[in-house]
């Protein structure tokens, strides 16, 4: 069988300020995804390349000249320009053609691909697999959810979906461990936990208005939560500046108690009934611990099992480790079965991602 072309990409539009300059916020994501999925696909016989805003890469890499694209759009290359780009319903034809030239492939696999790119690729008839970090971070490894615009690939994803029951069982194990631990702080029954988020997270952008959402937009709801709860804890995001709008608003609610306790340790406590946030992944996690989730903003992604239809994308399905194996990409290619080479090992992806989100703290041996 001839090699099919697969391109690995990511959220190519997003800039990140580094000193006086702006660079891609996601070039590492693309390199990361290429290291795992790209390698597995190569072993499965795919001709793999990458596309991102990453001038350091050479050979089989297509560098996106994002400064030139922002310039052509008449947008500043900064965060405000990025938000404005996300808000635009369409990109000019010339830019879409320029992007399509870079994505000349049978399959594009991306790390949290932006909506514009999903639409452009799908309209061009290119198969897409979007790899999304799943909100549940407390399994033996971090989990990625994959969504696609192809029914046959969706069916393959469905075969490898992580069962909700498996997630619930792991939440039960964490609650079991927490039962032996000293409570992180004195709690009252009927307590609520509010989670902070960083303002520059994509999930925090309200594309309808172009504004960054923050908890400050929901001061009234937070006050009601205080009135409705025996106590309210606030766990600020570690990267949120002290003088952020969120911080200022939460400080105005003097009854709110701030905490830096481990998130999983907190939501394992029986006194906490409600977890509230804009659209933090912690809300999804909290539900597995039996807590009510109060969403102040809609979630960024739709997780479920709805298949793609009418050229659109299906729901994102949380996946077991199969997508890190050549066998998976061989099946996507419609080729014969390939060997499963990488054995499942706890924390493989977590370590590769170099991110923890508090899981290791609850997972460690303490005595």
């Amino acid at each position, binding site marked *: 069988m001839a090699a099919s072309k697969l391109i690995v990409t990511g959220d190519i539009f997003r800039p990140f300020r580094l000193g006086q300059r702006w660079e891609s916020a996601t070039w590492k994501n693309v390199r990361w995804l290429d290291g795992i999925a790209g390698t597995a696909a190569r072993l499965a016989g795919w001709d793999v390349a990458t596309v991102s805003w990453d001038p350091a890469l050479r050979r089989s890499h297509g560098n996106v000249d994002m400064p030139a694209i922002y310039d052509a759009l008449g947008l500043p290359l900064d965060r405000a320009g990025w938000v404005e780009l996300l808000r635009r319903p369409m990109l000019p034809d010339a830019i879409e053609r320029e992007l399509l030239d870079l994505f000349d492939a049978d399959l594009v696999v991306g790390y949290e691909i932006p909506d514009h790119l999903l639409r452009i690729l799908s309209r061009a008839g290119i198969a897409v697999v979007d790899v999304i970090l799943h909100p549940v971070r407390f399994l033996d490894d971090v989990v990625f959810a994959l969504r696609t615009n192809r029914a046959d690939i969706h069916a393959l994803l469905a075969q490898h979906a992580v069962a909700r029951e498996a997630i619930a069982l792991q939440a039960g194990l964490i609650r079991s461990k927490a039962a032996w631990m000293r409570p992180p702080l004195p709690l*009252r029954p*009927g307590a609520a936990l509010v989670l902070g988020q960083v303002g520059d997270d994509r999930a925090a952008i309200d594309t309808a208005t172009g504004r960054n959402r923050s908890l400050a937009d929901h001061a009234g709801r937070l*006050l009601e939560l*205080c009135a*409705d709860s025996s106590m*309210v804890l606030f766990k600020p995001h570690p990267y949120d500046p002290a003088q952020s709008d969120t911080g200022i608003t939460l400080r105005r609610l*003097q*009854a*709110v108690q701030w905490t830096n306790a481990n998130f999983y340790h907190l939501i394992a406590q029986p006194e906490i009934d409600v977890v509230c946030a804009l659209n933090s992944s912690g809300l999804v996690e909290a539900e597995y611990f039996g807590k009510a989730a109060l969403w102040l903003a809609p979630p960024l992604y739709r997780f479920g099992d709805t298949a793609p239809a009418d050229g659109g994308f299906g729901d994102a399905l949380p996946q077991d480790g199969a997508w890190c194996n050549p066998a998976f990409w061989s099946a996507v290619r419609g080729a014969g079965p390939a060997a499963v080479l990488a054995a499942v090992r706890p924390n493989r992806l977590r370590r590769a991602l170099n991110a923890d989100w508090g899981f290791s703290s609850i997972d460690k041996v303490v005595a």
Partner: protein
Amino acid sequence: MSESRWQPVLQSIEAGDFAAAVAALDRTLEAAPLDSEGLMLRAVAKAAQERVADAEADLWRALAIAPAAPGPRAALGDLFVRDLTEPPAQRDFSLGSGERQTSPNLGEIREDHRSRYEFAALWLRDALAPAHRTTGIDLFCGNGYGSRILADLAGCRMVGVDGSADAVTLAETAYGGHRVVFRQAYFPFALTERALDFAVCFESIEHVEDCDGYLATVDAAVRGPILLSFPIETTLPFDINADLFRYHTRHFTISEMEEKLARICKRRIAAIRGQVVYALKNRRLNGYVPPQQMALTAVKPDSQFAVVVACRA
């Protein structure tokens, strides 16, 4: 409070046009929901409209923003306790009178007192659904430790009432919070009818001359259970110990209390516990039993106190 800012609202309130005041405050608070002064004023206007529950909600909201604000703290007391009586000058209301626990630390409150409130808190936590959305009154709350235990263990909001100004001052400092407020009031007073979810009256009814009137007042004020304790006459006879219980007016048998609750309150005893506190010699008090013997138990022949939960029949 910056009066000039609120001049139009205050004028509406003074003119008795509470609807206009509430409407103006609704607009203000929609734009600035964390304005505790606005919430306080709206509560005043709503209270004047006899919208007690709405007024109460605004006052707790105000305290979530500014827990130490004296206005909402006092207003919550005023919302529930009215027609105050001047305390008699001859009674000793000082903290050192021997009638009250004086420690500002929960861990130093005597075991018999703590265990009554802990029983009450766990009973309320399980019986009220959900307890953290309820408001209770703690009558004769002393220095307030019990109100705090109820708030901590059941999650409920509490209004503590005591006749001693010194005790209430200590209570506010040591045990107050954004869900626990205290006010000084000497019985007889009136309580706003059916405004509270439950009442706790520990070590109180035996102090009151008109105990039937007291029960009727409490019963009318609460929608849910009344939890009360009393010394049991058969094991702690009042006549024999009257000199040692100088502020008590009488003790009760369990059947007497059962009859009063049924007749005056149309309530039945839903749960009852017994407690031993004192060492006795010839039926007279002779010191305390060790703290570990003060735990609440089933009612036994030697129980000296009963703690009962009275629910509407």
